[in-house]
């Protein structure tokens, strides 16, 4: 139904028909009605007509504003406004009339019954959604009034105010997918998503760590060279500890002579460096011996070497000479007699760093 415009004349005709009077009389009546009403409004500023409502003049105060074009401040003049307040009866009729007349009229979308029912349902659903919003945002228990009609069972949970919000949320899951699946998922899965993510991250971390550990173990047991390397490394550490006990730090001692040698190095070193490779490379034979030392508890090759040659590093030569009776240079069998070989001077020159270097090399070699 396109809205028809009903003029005063149409109304006059209708009134005449209803009252059984002439149209002239009706229109005369209406014109009188009009003039009286107009006067009443203009003079009394209020007019009540029973069955219709109240017409009232309202004074709107002048107010300041800004001109849209120029931006100048302007003042909007005060004016009278004619307000109409319908009587409650008429108001209700208009609102209810929509539904009563709708079937006769038929073509108004909002006035047919089915859409109205839908609207009602929508309102109920919206109430539910709103409740959930309240519940989630404030965390306070929501009013049961709205839960009761549309969310059937929630009446039971009214006593347990804390559980209520959860209940509502759960129910919303049921309700919302019908209308607003996107929003529903947003609301419901906001917090759980975060938790899930965290849990996932932790689980993944644990899994990765376990895998890495497993890989390491597998690699250790499956690869022969690696195991050997580990073993040798541990042995090295052990031997170094032992060495520290038996001999004062070799590196320290080797450094000391360097300081004292500085002067002699310039003159002597160069010819020696050239000659020595051959000297050191020649196989050593131990035929001449100075003395023999008896091994007692606590005696070390290094100390013996220091006693006879002036440096602990040269113990290697003693070891070489006594290889048959000394299986392990770190473990001297107590009571055995160690022969101290007579060494050429170029081998045990304390002032020559080359000698020390070579001895150290041998030292490392034998300890391995």
């Amino acid at each position, binding site marked *: 139904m396109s809205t028809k415009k009903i003029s005063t004349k149409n109304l006059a005709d209708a009134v005449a028909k209803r009252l059984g009077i002439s149209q002239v009389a009706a229109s005369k009546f209406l014109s009188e009605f009009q003039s009286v009403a107009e006067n009443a409004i203009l003079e009394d500023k209020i007019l009540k007509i029973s069955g*219709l409502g109240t017409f009232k003049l309202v*004074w709107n105060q002048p107010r300041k504003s800004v001109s849209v074009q120029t931006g100048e401040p302007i003042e909007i003049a005060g004016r009278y406004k004619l307000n109409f307040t319908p009587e409650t009866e008429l108001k209700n009729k208009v609102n209810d009339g929509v539904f009563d007349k709708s079937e006769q009229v038929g073509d108004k979308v909002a006035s047919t019954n089915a859409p109205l029912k839908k609207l009602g349902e929508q309102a109920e659903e919206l109430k539910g959604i709103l409740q959930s*919003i309240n519940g989630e945002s404030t965390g306070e228990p929501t009013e049961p009034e709205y839960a009761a009609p549309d969310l059937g069972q929630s009446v039971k949970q009214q006593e347990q105010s804390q559980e209520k919000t959860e209940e509502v949320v759960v129910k919303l899951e049921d309700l919302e997918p019908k209308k607003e699946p996107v929003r529903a998922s947003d609301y419901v899965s906001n917090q759980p998503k975060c938790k899930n993510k965290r849990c996932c991250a932790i689980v993944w971390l644990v899994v990765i760590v376990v895998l890495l550990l497993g890989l390491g173990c597998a690699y250790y047991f499956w690869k022969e060279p690696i195991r050997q390397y580990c073993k040798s490394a541990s042995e090295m550490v052990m031997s170094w500890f032992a060495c520290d006990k038996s001999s004062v730090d070799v590196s320290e001692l080797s450094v000391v002579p360097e300081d004292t040698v500085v002067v002699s190095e310039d003159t002597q070193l160069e010819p020696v460096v050239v000659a020595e490779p051959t000297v050191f490379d020649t196989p050593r034979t131990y035929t001449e011996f100075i003395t023999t030392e008896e091994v007692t508890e606590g005696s070390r090759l290094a100390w013996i070497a220091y006693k006879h040659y002036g440096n602990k590093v040269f113990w290697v030569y003693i070891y070489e000479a006594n290889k048959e009776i000394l299986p392990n240079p770190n473990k001297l069998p107590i009571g055995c007699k160690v022969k101290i070989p007579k060494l050429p001077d170029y081998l045990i020159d304390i002032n020559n760093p080359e000698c020390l270097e070579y001895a150290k090399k041998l030292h490392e070699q034998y300890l391995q």
Partner: protein
Amino acid sequence: MNNKEFVSELAQRMNLSQKEVVQYVSAFVDELSSNVIEGNQVAFLNLGMLEVRHKKQRISVSPITKERIVVPAKRVLAFKSSTGMKEKLKQLPKA
């Protein structure tokens, strides 16, 4: 001016009894309101137009409880004063 005064005024002008005038007025109002309810735009003499307006449902928040309430869709009776009436109102002395 209330209804009683209005009716007596009208009766005086038309030389009719108040009873008759009440009859006339109620007939007019009935006719008018029934037309309005049907959804028509009805001229209320030269004062203005009466029409039904549709209000969509909306969400409002109670300022006291901060509670959100759905205000359902409804129809309201609206009055729009005519230009002629507005002009006459402008003539009125300022309040």
